[in-house]
């Protein structure tokens, strides 16, 4: 996507535009019925996750199928800080991101010895292993199937013990609760990290480090022939993207303080791959758009059930209406994953560059047309 038109100024415009759009989400999402905090937090958190994933997959060309493991590790670490130290989210987020970073350093060190399909399978295997461990042996740390939850008996060294009869204290940012401002504070808190993460990803893309990563993606052998040791670069990219995922996991735990092993399952890793692909691999904004589209669609589609559909098609003759409703109901509600799978296939087959490529194509068509007009 490196175009000759990229200048520091265009990057600044992109960044400012992005910031504005994200901050104004509660306003412009209103007509779509998506302007409530829960969903917008998801947009921000998964957008962050996808940005980080894109640094590894989009820029460096390594397809990891185990990134959800870092989300899980980040969540667990965050909740433990809530339990042991304080309900203030800042120490928890810093600690959680660091732990995820160290964890991804170890995993990356092992997996990056191989490339291509081997790498994908190795990450898949390691993530699956962490998932299994979280369910079985590590139960004292992870609480197994119930998931790690807060309780009034936690020690909270910095906050002090909870008075008798009081509930679990809420997560807060120096006294401001996450659910303050009708939940909007939680959203803006996540959005802040999304914007910072986006800025870092622009800086990485434009830096010489970023072009090194793209060099690895294009032709690693040639990079090595020029005498470069590519491993530190790959490992750095892996750790950075692991920390992004860890931070996303921390934010999940910050807005809703519990952590469960199902966040680490490999289908969750598959979901972030889909987000990145749907938005546009290797582009800056693409992954965020992809994440938002999927989370929005998930929210809309899985809420529809058969009775809604029957109402929707009630203008048709009875039998036809019921028939169409029953066909469509395969794709919505509990069948939402079927739509997801189909979407996945369609995007990979017809639009490998994702939404961003689609936009680009449309733009080019109009641009070429207008140039042809002016030539006449």
């Amino acid at each position, binding site marked *: 996507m490196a175009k000759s038109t990229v200048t520091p100024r265009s990057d600044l415009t992109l960044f400012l535009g992005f910031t504005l759009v994200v901050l104004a989400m509660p306003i412009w999402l209103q007509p779509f019925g998506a302007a409530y905090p829960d969903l917008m937090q998801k947009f921000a958190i998964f957008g962050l996750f996808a940005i980080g994933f894109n640094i590894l997959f989009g820029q460096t*060309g390594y397809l990891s199928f185990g990134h959800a493991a870092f989300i899980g590790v980040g969540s667990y670490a965050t909740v433990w800080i809530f339990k042991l130290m304080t309900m203030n989210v800042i120490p928890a987020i810093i600690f959680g991101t660091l732990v995820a970073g160290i964890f991804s350093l170890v995993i990356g060190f092992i997996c990056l*010895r191989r490339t291509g399909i081997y790498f994908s399978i*190795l990450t*898949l*295997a390691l993530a699956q*292993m962490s998932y299994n461990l979280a369910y079985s042996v590590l139960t004292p740390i992870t609480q197994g199937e119930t998931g790690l939850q807060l309780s009034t008996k936690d020690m909270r060294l910095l906050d002090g013990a909870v008075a008798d009869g009081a509930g679990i204290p809420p997560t807060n940012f120096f006294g401001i609760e996450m659910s303050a401002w009708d939940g909007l504070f939680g959203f803006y808190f996540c959005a802040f990290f999304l914007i910072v993460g986006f800025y870092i990803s622009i800086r990485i893309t434009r830096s010489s480090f970023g072009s090194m990563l793209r060099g690895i993606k294009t032709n690693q052998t040639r990079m090595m022939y020029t005498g470069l040791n590519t491993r530190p670069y790959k490992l750095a990219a892996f750790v950075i993207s692991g920390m992004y995922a860890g931070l996303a996991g921390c934010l999940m735990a910050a807005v809703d303080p519990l952590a469960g092993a199902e966040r680490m399952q490999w289908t969750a890793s598959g979901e972030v791959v889909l987000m990145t692909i749907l938005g546009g691999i290797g582009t800056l904004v693409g992954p965020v758009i992809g994440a938002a589209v999927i989370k929005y669609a998930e929210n809309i589609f899985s809420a529809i059930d058969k009775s809604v559909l029957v109402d929707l098609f009630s203008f048709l003759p009875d039998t036809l209406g019921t028939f169409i409703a029953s066909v469509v109901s*395969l794709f919505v509600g509990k069948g939402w994953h079927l739509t997801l799978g189909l979407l*996945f296939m369609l995007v990979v*087959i017809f639009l*490998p560059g994702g939404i961003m490529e689609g936009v680009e194509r449309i733009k080019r068509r109009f641009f070429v047309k207008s140039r042809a007009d002016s030539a006449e």
Partner: protein
Amino acid sequence: MDAILLQILNGLDKGGAYALIALGLTLIFGTLGVVNFAHGALFMLGAFCAVTVNKAITLSAKVRDESVTFFEAYKDVPYLEMWLGETGSLIINWSIPISLLVAIPVMLGIGLAMERGLIRHFYKRPHADQILVTFGLAIVLQEIIKAFYGANPIPQTAPDFFSGTVNLGALIGMDLTYPTWRLVYFIFSMGIIAAVFSFLQFTTFGMVVRAGMADRETVQLLGINITKRFSTVFGIAAVVSGLAGLMYTPILPPDYHMGMDFLVLSFVVVVVGGMGSLPGAVAAGFLLGILQSLASMTEVKEIFPGIDQIIIYLIAMIVLLVRPRGLMGRKGVMED
């Protein structure tokens, strides 16, 4: 000692399933160069062939139950039993072996359709695209099955003839009782493996396929339509993993995501065995199956808690770090 032998035996049936799926994966990878993430879904589809056949032959009518005299009670009597009497119940009892006959053409058809309709267009695309599109296909297939059969496992029973246990240790004076069906599964998987290998080794078709795996271009230059043969190989691979799933139903009640569970492990098996090596896939399948069941012994678990959950992944990591090509991997396969 008895316990260890018994665990090795227990590992054989699971190892057989891993070996069969890994064999299919390797066949597809070796011939078409495609990494098929939808292979687990084929295993699952095979299992649901058995479920479908079973449902079809036990189609029932409601008949008044004469043994209840107080009130009008009804019971389900399959049509087959009404028409054929004893023979009918025998057929129902043998539904799994019968569904083998149905599954072979069905799986062959599904395999060919998949190759012609989708995979063929992905030969020239990067491996990442192949992984992604087959991953999507796997989700679609399993969601379709879920929509038709629901999310709960559907238990299947083996024919009465194979129920119960056999004492394998009788000959050597030990006590090794082993479920008969698992033994059948092991023998069956060995049979399939032998059939695939001899097909590749002793038939002209197999010879051409092997030649194509070694050097595709030269074979094409000799005027042989290798693409056509390779899509047949895809069909065969689909049949192999479908049958593996079908025969596994009495051991593990099939549900819609059984394929995914087996797929991840089978990939690990393929990597451990060495990508593109058929004997490697089979050997690693049995090896990992046996190791897994050894690791679930209580004595081992006391020393290393939870080892049964992670042993396979642990072995895979060690093998890849020590022998990056896998146990029997060939040089030059998937190295770039």
